[in-house]
């Protein structure tokens, strides 16, 4: 097993470069885990909007009541009333809604004059639609009282409104999925894995093949007593072992992060999917390793291939935001099929026939990628060999 050993020696030499991508992946994975997930909530919870409430109208029971009412459905973020700070916060979505109560609002309102609150929002956002409806609801209710009951004090008004607004519709949850967040996280974990796995395999395998393909070295190997077939076999074995090893190392953190959840049907499917994907990537790496000429080009190719396929296949951004034409184009890469089956595995609640069929299709497509890429590179290799033989 001389060739096999030599293969891993070369990999070891390139360890530093390979390790970078593993560290990037670990960083992403840990970052993902650190995002707080609220415990599985089986009851309905209303959304809370991050907002800033600025009142220039002091000592107003009406405004206090309004603030209290929306306070149940908002997180008030303490930001100094500084124009630039508020606008920065809105840009980076630290807050999504800024409302200002102008001076003399309450008095004008009670006297029936036309006066409005000022809002600064992300235009057309759903959160602004929600908060608009809450504020308008409160003030319209107040309007009804002020217009129809004479001599109402502010305190009475606030009490009436708060009594009315305590009536709420009953919300029932239909088979809520307690593991929804966890499944989403796991899906993202395995999606991110695609990026690093792709980069590592292309880098490692191309670097190794590059060495074996050096003309002088290749010629020297050809006149060694080892049969070409044996040499190729060992090389391919080395590739496969390297791919499986990388796969295992990348999957390992998931057992630490998700523990028992990985020993389920879902966990098993995630892992199986990753293995099939790694075969496809292996094929592609083998191909690039045989095509790419210079050493320096390898890292460029590895970066462009891994980043490119991941971006267009929806690894870094959810698929819904990618255009249809782009996705069609992306379906020419194995990453597309890997991400697709990841999402199906992550979101299915029980094994349905159509899900199984979709996952199997993805597996088959990925295997076809592997076989094709492999076959093409073998043909290229053979051609090169023939040229070399003729050259002598």
């Amino acid at each position: 097993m001389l060739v096999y050993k030599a293969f891993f020696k070369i990999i070891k030499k390139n360890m530093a470069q390979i390790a970078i991508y593993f560290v990037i992946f670990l960083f992403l994975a840990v970052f993902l885990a650190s995002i707080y997930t609220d415990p599985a909530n089986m009851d309905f919870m209303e959304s809370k909007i991050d907002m800033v409430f600025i009142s220039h109208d002091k000592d107003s029971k009406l405004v206090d009541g309004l603030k209290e009412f929306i306070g149940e459905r908002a997180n008030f973020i303490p930001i100094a009333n500084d124009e630039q700070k508020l606008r920065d916060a809105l840009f980076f979505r630290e807050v999504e809604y800024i409302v200002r109560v102008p001076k003399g609002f309450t008095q004008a309102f009670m006297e029936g004059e036309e006066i409005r609150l000022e809002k600064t929002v992300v235009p057309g956002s759903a959160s602004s639609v929600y908060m608009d409806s809450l504020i308008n609801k409160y003030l319209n209710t107040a309007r009804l009282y002020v217009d129809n009951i004479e001599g109402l004090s502010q305190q009475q008004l606030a009490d009436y409104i708060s009594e009315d607004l305590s009536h709420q519709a009953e919300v029932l949850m239909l088979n809520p999925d307690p593991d929804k967040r966890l499944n989403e996280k796991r899906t993202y974990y395995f999606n991110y894995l695609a990026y690093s796995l792709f980069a590592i395999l292309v880098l490692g395998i191309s670097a190794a093949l590059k060495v074996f393909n050096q003309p002088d070295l290749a010629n020297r190997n050809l006149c060694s007593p080892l049969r070409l077939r044996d040499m190729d076999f060992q090389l391919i074995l080395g590739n496969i072992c390297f791919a499986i090893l990388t796969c295992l190392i990348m999957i390992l953190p998931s057992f630490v992060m998700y523990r028992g959840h990985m020993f389920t049907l879902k966990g098993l499917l995630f892992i199986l999917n990753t293995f099939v994907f790694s075969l496809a990537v292996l094929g592609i790496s083998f191909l690039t390793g045989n095509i790419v000429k210079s050493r320096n080009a390898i890292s460029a190719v590895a970066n462009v291939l891994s980043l490119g396929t991941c971006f267009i296949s929806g690894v870094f951004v959810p698929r819904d935001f990618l255009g249809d034409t782009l996705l069609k184009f992306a379906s020419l890469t194995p990453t597309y099929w890997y991400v697709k089956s990841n999402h199906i595995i992550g979101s299915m609640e029980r094994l349905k026939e159509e899900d199984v069929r979709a996952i199997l299709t993805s597996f088959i497509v990925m295997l076809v990628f592997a076989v094709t890429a492999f076959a093409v590179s073998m043909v290229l290799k053979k051609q090169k060999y023939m040229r070399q033989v003729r050259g002598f």
Partner: protein
Amino acid sequence: MFLHNYIYRLKCIIRDKEFLFWTLLFPIILATLFNFAFSNITEAEKFTRLNIAVVDNEEFRQNTALQRAIKAAANSSGDKDQEGLFNIRYTSKEEGDKLLEDREIEGYIYLDNGIKLVVKESGLSQSIIKGFMDHFMQLSSTLETIIRKDPQSMERGILDKAEAAINYLKEVAPSKSSPDIVVNYFYNLIAMACMYGGFWGLKEVTVIQANLSSQGARINIAPIHKFKIFIVCVLAAVTVQLFEILLLLAYLALVLKISFGNQIGYIIFTCIVGTITGVTFGAFVASVVKKGEGVKIGILIGSSMTMSFLAGMMYDKMKYIISTKVPVIGYLNPANLITDCFYSLYYYGINTRFFINIGVLCVFIVFFSLCTYLILRRQKYASL
């Protein structure tokens, strides 16, 4: 002589395919990928009409008030701010369950001894539906209270008044430009490309240092002042890098249609300052670090990636977190300063913030250049 050296340095630089890839092609590829990925991402927070179902049973048919309210919510009212909230379909309960399971609808309304809302998960869409249902019940309560207090209000047409809701909010835009988080990614990308200009700075220092390349050894024997040749080299590097950055800028603005605001002169000025910062940064790294070229390139890539990360290239909120929690780090990070220049031009127009950023960048340029010069000057070698 100056021109001669300059032209030959330019030739040397543009023949370095590997560095050309990283400084020019890589940012353009990344920009294209960003564009694929982020062009629709703001759609996620946009409001779109919600798909809901109403279970059409006996109790619902009797509740004409609710029927009217739901119809009103589905149609857009006169106010242009308030489009219709819902797309409604009427179903049986079983069908509603199935639609909900298949995520065709966000929830369905079901009347069974009172109004009930059935949903699959908690979220903003579901909260909006609930808010609407709440409103219907709360309005009834308000009317009851008023009519009880003053029975004559009925005759004054309180019911009609109740339905004519007034919009009490007026929108004040945060800026002439929309708060579109996506542009920040692209500004960051330019900042990263500027810092990648460090590759050229590094290359130029290697070329004139006798202990780093044989070419450097030859140049050192030539009768030309070290400072002169250094200036020529840096100038050549800045020329090429600036050309690349402007190409990237043109690609972003003209092909990908990224908005930069309308201060073209200031934007190009930022590019120039950013480019010089990047190139001098590379020269600084190359002269300070006394290890092999691989290590220097590693440090260059590592530090520019870290800077880009802190400026928000991988996680958009990072820039905000740094600027509010530890603003000092923001000012010590050239990538962040460059990004912030573009950001403030886009969002605020020309203001002091922009000039502070440019000022700090200039301080960096002077610092990097001075250090590089002090290290490079008057070096003598016993043997090479």
